[in-house]
């Protein structure tokens, strides 16, 4: 049974104080968390905070804001790409961001060393355009009401409503939010690893009673089945056969924004943006002779298929790709659906276990028999 702490303060306040104490005590050198950017428009961005002032009441940091301006898995990769952290840094991230980071670590794009990973059970995030249109603030009261009831607000990203992995894997500390009716006055957090427990133990200013409980409460299970049902519905709404993909991606403008924001797409230069795809005029002309007409720029559906082949096994269904698509294509629903099938085929769950090899990196003698025959 996991060990935890019960703190007599609202969950958001308690976590802010915890982060404040971690910084002030010098137990961590920095905290990666969401925060308000400066300026009249007041955008939301991830920041690497080193000053504890950000975490006092009305400070800039907003650790559990239901918004994802970037998948933090990619940001943790950026932070640790060139080497492990020399000293501890905490990061408050959502479960899918954590899963994405685990997948990146497996690909040697980051390091878990010296990271204190704090996550929570997750009620989803609002699409970027809600933030862009200034609609985030007004939705927060009903968002938190839904989270308390173990429900999912209908305006969050479709893939969030359909997310069945909203209980974090591999967090050092997990904050219970979904289905916690008293989260305005009580904070329940689970110390999932020895590392998590060690950071919190004896921390000045942290007053809580230890508890031994289950993270997987009844509301969590209920939310899981609700989301699983919506997942079926959502996936049924997109067809992923070749003809359907050609039709759906017909309005793709080839901007590759889906790739740019995808945490799993880590290549510094995508093949489809490389010199290999800058063809001689003769190539276009012979294609033109063959087909009578061809789309420019080329490789619209080919790019999507290539990306599916490269990332689907590790797709964490975060929804960034849909949010940035200027052509309003439900990219993440398609990728999530295909990803789920591919992952089932390999009995693989992205982000679950950092020691488990990526299916395409391992070889089992008997598994290719069906291809061989």
């Amino acid at each position, binding site marked *: 049974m996991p060990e935890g702490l019960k703190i007599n303060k609202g969950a958001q306040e308690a976590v802010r104080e915890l982060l404040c104490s971690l910084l002030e005590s010098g137990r961590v050198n920095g905290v990666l968390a969401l925060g308000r950017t400066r300026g009249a*428009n007041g955008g939301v961005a991830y920041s690497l905070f080193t000053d504890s002032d950000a975490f006092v009441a009305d400070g800039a940091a907003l650790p559990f804001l239901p918004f994802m301006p970037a998948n933090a898995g990619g940001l943790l990769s950026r*932070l640790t790409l060139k080497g492990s952290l020399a000293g501890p*840094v905490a990061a408050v991230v959502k479960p899918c961001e954590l899963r994405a980071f685990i997948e990146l670590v497996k690909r040697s794009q980051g390091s878990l060393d010296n990271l204190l990973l704090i996550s929570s059970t997750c009620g989803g995030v609002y699409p970027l355009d809600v933030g862009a249109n200034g609609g985030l603030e007004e939705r927060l009261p009903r968002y938190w009401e839904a989270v308390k009831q173990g429900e999912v607000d209908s305006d969050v990203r479709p893939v969030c409503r359909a997310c069945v992995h909203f209980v974090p894997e591999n967090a050092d500390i997990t904050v219970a939010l979904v289905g916690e009716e008293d989260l305005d006055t009580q904070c329940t957090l689970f110390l999932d690893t020895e590392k998590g427990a060690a950071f919190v133990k004896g921390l000045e200013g942290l007053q809580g009673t230890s508890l031994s409980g289950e993270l997987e409460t009844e509301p969590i299970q209920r939310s899981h089945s609700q989301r699983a049902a919506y997942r079926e519905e959502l996936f049924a709404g997109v067809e992923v056969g070749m003809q359907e993909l050609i039709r759906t991606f017909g309005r793709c403008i080839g*901007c590759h924004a889906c790739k740019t924001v995808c945490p799993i797409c880590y290549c510094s230069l995508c093949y489809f943006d490389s010199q290999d795809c800058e063809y001689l005029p003769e190539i*276009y002309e012979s294609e033109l002779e063959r087909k009578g007409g061809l789309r420019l720029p080329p490789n619209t559906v080919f790019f999507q298929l290539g990306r599916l082949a490269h990332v689907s096994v590790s797709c964490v269904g975060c929804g960034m790709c849909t949010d940035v698509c200027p052509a309003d294509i439900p990219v993440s629903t398609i990728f999530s659906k295909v990803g789920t099938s591919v992952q089932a085929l390999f009995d693989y769950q992205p982000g679950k276990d950092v020691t488990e090899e990526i299916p395409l990196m391992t070889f089992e003698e008997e598994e290719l028999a069906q291809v061989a025959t």
Partner: protein
Amino acid sequence: MNDKGAILPAENGVEAAVVGWLKEALNKKVFDALLMPVQVPAGDSFAYLLLQNPALLENGSPLPPVMPVQGARAISRLTMRGNGSKRIAAVVRPCEARAAIELTKLEQAHLDNLWLITVDCPGVLPLSDYLDDPAAGAARFVEASQHWDRAPMRPVCQICHRFSMPASDLHVGTLGSADGAVFVIPGSPKGERVLESMDMPVDAALDDWAAQVKEMEEAQTERRQQAHADLRAGIAGPDGLLDVFSDCINCHNCQRVCPVCYCRQCYFESAALKLPPENYLTRSKRKGALRFPPDTLLFHIGRASHMILSCVSCGACEDACPMSIPVAQVFSLLADRAQETFGYVAGKSLDDPLPLVAYEMDEFHQVEQPYVEIYHKREVQDA
């Protein structure tokens, strides 16, 4: 500019007239292929299609309601590695033609075997507005463009003053034409030869067209200056820029769809900016926090300094911004001022050298002066 044009009958509208004319050109082998916007099979958008099969022209649309891909990018992909052997007519909007001219000067496109064909442009709808309901969007576009009402168009289309003939080979003038006909105006010897070989005499006076274009240009210039003055008040100085870009999520999609930002890999996505963790922490400690990923505003300023002299104010960046930041409006203001400083207009002519490539002995003394007066003395002292 030519003061005479050919007459093209257009009883069934401009689009049908242009498509019919180009079909004839294709059949007469005046061109080997066409590059033009064609409605996609699902009917919910348009894409550039290079075609030589005239049957594919059925869904061709010289003036689609949206600009999903900036046409200069399509031209550049086709010709970046040299002139092809086929003679291709590219039907693009004036700002797309101007971007194609910039890309040619930047050696990212080759126009020797390509004819730029443009039409007086009413603007385009923002892509997301159109995609909300493509059929309604198309109707709204047709209705508005009939009256040259730019209100539903992209914000930079609303303040566009270069909507008419750019340095294209052939331009279709729809303003000031008699009912049921439009002008086809040659802009180059290449264009003249096309009209000759299609037996289209260039004998119609263009006075009415020119007068209406001039009148609209003047009105649009005034709107542009007013809009820029309003915008400038909000974005002046580092604080103003931080405000306007405060929502930016660093997806760099503005750069990805920009026809002029042609670098295969942007510096801001390169290994040069992937730094050891201590670097980020040190920078954070200086200020208490470091936005992550860092360099949000630096990216926009860097991009502006690289491409602003060639910015054609097409609005592709703003359409592609997931955070609805008025990127194109900000860049149109910066572009007008930067280009004015160099007496340069992006896309105006293949013959005007790019300001940063040309060097004049007698320019920018105001930059030299501080060096001579201040820094040189200091250097001498320090030595």
